[in-house]
């Protein structure tokens, strides 16, 4: 048994900033349940960062679960598969979790037939027969994207460009967002498959070392994984100090390896590739079972929710179905958020579909949902203290508000990872991140214009 002081010394973490919001992992002990099939799914055609895919189905087409419904366009793009079997009702604009209307394939569910070649049995297949190139191809075809929420196409992360060298794979099991427990449950219940997934990722990258980082508030997962990796060569599990935003890849790399990703750089620049535990599981299923990414574990949680749960959900299921499965929408609901409370986004309607990046659905009661009125900045510099990227949020906000975008660029506003620690900690309740995000979009626009000239 280690005391708190010892713990602080023993456990690794990132050096700059960070906050510790109340953990609220209400659904941590709830086993993953299979959610019922919805009547209708709406699957967004673009669920990833990069070029949107082009739909290859049309109205009245019959599809099976696992059929490609949208083909990737270009390198940084991903395939989209049907998550159910049924008839395509229409390709229409549907409001998704981003808050805007996006093209979606709306499919009426009929039965549950799977496309040929998908192994739906629960048998564990350990032997990896494919080469690195074949694995990348499989990952691309299966439409796997980063499942921590950023939805960056995974095959891109597996293709190491010429001149770059990767020596370590980091598996992100941190789950630093309060409330969310989907990764936690995956690590507990699907560890064996996940470890094979990690082996596959290691082979694709050609690395000998894989580190799994898990925050110390999940001792059962750490113990279980430590048990599992015994005898697995090159794999190590680390318990990390509980600190938000440790799940940010730059923070996690620093916590585990003490390497700092340079400003504007990628983890590749320090020889690291980071994948989420959910992604590792999806890679296992794609490579060993031939199953594309059409379902994921989603935490449905909230203080006033009757039955917080971790559900295995088909992509495209409307959020209201999930809330129904968790005991229905409580009367005192103020906000429903897709993702965690720190970085998640409030939803406009409950018809929003679950996408590949949906890690959780959080129901916030009315009294906690409202923002506190803004006051004046008292120059306490708490935002500077907590910024994990070493930025000065108060300054960035002012510059963005005054439209001084060139200075904003000089202040490295693009390094902001939008973790929200500054807004969370601000005693004057200033909407720091809101303005920083606005500034970022302007600066990005300026840079694009400069490049196109």
């Amino acid at each position: 048994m280690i005391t708190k002081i010892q713990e602080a010394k023993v456990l690794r973490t990132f050096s700059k900033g960070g906050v510790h919001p109340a953990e609220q992992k209400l659904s941590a002990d709830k086993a993953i349940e299979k959610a019922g099939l919805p009547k209708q799914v709406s699957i967004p055609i673009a669920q990833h960062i990069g070029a949107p895919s082009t739909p290859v189905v049309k109205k009245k087409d019959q599809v099976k679960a696992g059929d490609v419904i949208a083909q990737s366009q270009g390198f940084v793009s991903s395939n989209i598969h049907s998550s159910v079997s049924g008839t395509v009702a229409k390709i229409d604009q549907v409001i998704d979790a981003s808050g805007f209307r996006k093209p979606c394939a709306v499919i009426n569910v009929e039965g549950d037939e799977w496309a040929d070649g998908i192994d739906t049995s629960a048998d564990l297949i350990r032997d990896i027969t494919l080469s690195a190139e074949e694995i990348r191809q499989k990952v691309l075809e299966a439409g796997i994207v980063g499942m921590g929420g950023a939805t960056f196409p995974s095959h891109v992360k597996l293709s190491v460009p010429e001149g770059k060298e990767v020596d370590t794979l980091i598996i992100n099991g941190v789950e630093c967002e309060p409330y969310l427990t989907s990764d936690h449950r995956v690590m507990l219940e699907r560890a064996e498959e996940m470890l094979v997934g990690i082996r596959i990722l290691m082979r694709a990258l050609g690395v000998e070392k894989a580190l799994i980082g898990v925050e110390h508030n999940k001792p059962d997962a750490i113990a279980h994984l430590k048990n599992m990796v015994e005898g697995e060569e090159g794999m190590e599990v680390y318990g990390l100090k509980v600190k938000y935003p440790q799940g940010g890849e730059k923070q996690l790399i620093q916590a585990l390896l003490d390497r700092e990703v340079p400003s504007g750089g990628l983890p590749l620049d320090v020889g690291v590739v980071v994948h989420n535990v959910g992604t590792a599981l999806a890679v296992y299923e794609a490579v060993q079972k031939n199953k594309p990414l059409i379902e994921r574990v989603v935490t449905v949680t909230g203080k006033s929710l009757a039955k917080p749960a971790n559900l295995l959900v088909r992509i495209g299921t409307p959020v209201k179905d999930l809330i129904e499965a968790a005991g229905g929408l409580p009367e005192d609901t103020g906000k429903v958020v897709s993702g965690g409370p720190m970085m998640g986004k409030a939803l406009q309607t409950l018809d929003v579909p679950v996408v590949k990046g949906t890690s959780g659905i959080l129901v916030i009661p009315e009294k906690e949902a409202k923002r506190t009125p803004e006051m004046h900045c008292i120059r306490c510099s708490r935002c500077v203290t907590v910024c994990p990227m070493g930025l000065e949020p108060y300054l960035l906000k002012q510059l963005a508000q005054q439209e001084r975008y060139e200075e904003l660029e000089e202040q490295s506003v693009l390094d902001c990872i939008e973790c929200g620690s500054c807004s969370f900690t601000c005693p004057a309740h200033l909407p720091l991140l809101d303005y920083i995000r606005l500034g970022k979009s302007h600066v990005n626009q300026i840079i694009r214009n400069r490049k196109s000239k």
Partner: protein
Amino acid sequence: MTTTVLYTILSLSILGAIMAVILYIVAQKFKVYEDPRIDEVEDALPGANCGGCGYPGCRGFAEAMVKADDISEFNCPVGGNETMKEVARILGQEMEEKDPKVAVVRCNGTPQNRPQTSQYDGPSTCAIEATLYGGETGCHYGCLGKGDCVEVCEFDAIFMNEETGLPYVIDENCTACNACVTACPNDIIELRKRNKKDRKIYVSCVNQDKGALARKVCKVACIGCGKCVKVCPFDAITMENNLAYIDPVKCKLCRKCVEECPTHAILEVGFPPRKKKKEATEKQSAESQDKAKN
């Protein structure tokens, strides 16, 4: 005593004289030639520094005009034709008259017409709300109602109407400086030709959704039915992306389209009340046709 005073005065005078000479030499050596017309032109401009001309302030605009050979492409939206004539006189050029313009808010989504479906809780600016989602109502194109346009107006020409939640333009004060047009993230505000007596006919909607969807979220949305296009005798109305647009230059203010619009998305402003429906339209159409022939 007196000698001290004398010496002081003397030494200071000499020092002053030497400094004056040095200053003079330096001033001559580092003199920057500036066209005296720049000052003149700047004096002729309104001095609002609003940036409506696209240059950084009136001084920048004056410099650009003095430098250019031909100023016919330049326009000071605030000063209008009179100012530009004065500038042309100073620079010894001719200036064509330009149509004065006025800002028009193209959304009529009052809470009655366009019910609220969600509540936005973030910072009260349209710019941020627009990056987060489609807005508090079902319409993803219309006014967000946070008043970024009011904030940027230097001329007290645009205000929020508390009841409707929409901005309204005070035509006398509007100088068509374009500030509100650029501030609006949804491009609702347009600079349109200023007509006599500030009369206006315009499509008060920017919703590009298909008719059924647009109608569902807002009672007065343009549904893209095309009736106005057919009825317009001057080909002033075009239909693009399920949205009608009335060309302010071609429009002769006959008001036929206003009556035709099934959702009342086309507004008429500043007209006297109509006479009996039939008479009025016949008379007007006759008049307008006459005008067209002339």
